[in-house]
């Protein structure tokens, strides 16, 4: 059923693009981040004062490494999705908005890759 007015159809603007997958992905990553986030923030605060060798050994366990990479992926994905919504809401100029959204997307992917490569380097050495 289509509830759009004739004017709205002609303009071709508004919703019904790709909002639903975005909304669902935001919720799925949110649920995953409840345990993963609590785990990582606790570990991070605990390891804050730890000597190098202790932090290094922590990343030698496959369990910790898997959880850490899982956390990195969900955190940066969820972060990107949220930042996209904020940019869509507050940047009125269309092309500026596109540039910022694409920039955030690439930056998030890059930071996630950087973190994962670093984690794997410690794990595999």
């Amino acid at each position, binding site marked *: 059923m289509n509830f759009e007015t004739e004017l709205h159809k002609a303009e071709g603007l508004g919703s019904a693009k790709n909002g639903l997958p975005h909304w669902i992905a935001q919720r799925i990553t949110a649920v995953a981040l409840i345990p993963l986030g609590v785990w990582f923030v606790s570990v991070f605060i*605990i390891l804050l004062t730890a000597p190098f060798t202790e932090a290094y050994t922590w990343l030698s366990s496959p369990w910790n490494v898997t959880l850490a990479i899982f956390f990195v992926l969900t955190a940066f994905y969820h972060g990107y999705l949220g930042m996209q919504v904020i940019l869509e809401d507050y940047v009125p100029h269309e092309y500026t908005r596109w540039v910022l959204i694409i920039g955030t997307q690439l930056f998030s992917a890059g930071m996630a890759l950087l973190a994962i490569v670093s984690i794997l380097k410690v794990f595999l050495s």
Partner: protein
Amino acid sequence: MSQSLKERRPLSPHLQAYKIQITSLLSILHRGTGIVLYGGSILWALWFVALAIGPQSYEAMQHFLLHPLGLIILMGWSFSFFYHLCNGIRHLMWDLGIGYELTTVRRTGWTVVIASFFLTGVAWVLGFLCERIWS
């Protein structure tokens, strides 16, 4: 035609016309803490990088994080996390259709505020206790 229709459309009152309430304040804080967490993710990502590079960069990173300025940033970051976590659960409940009564909305709102301060406190007590274990 479409432009003139849009121009004649009634506008909603601007933000400053509204009185700040617990509901609106917590809503905007959810976004605010979300932005803080996105910024903070760069910090912990670089911590992983420092760990991968070696002991010297790890210790330099640690030195920065344990500097009073670093600690203030980390405390703000962790509070943002616990706030976003608790209020996020509140949002997920709404997505399930639970907790829409105005009295419930206010009560869960205050619960989120108290829980975020409490959890941040617990996390840092844990952190300071661990410092003694490491040293």
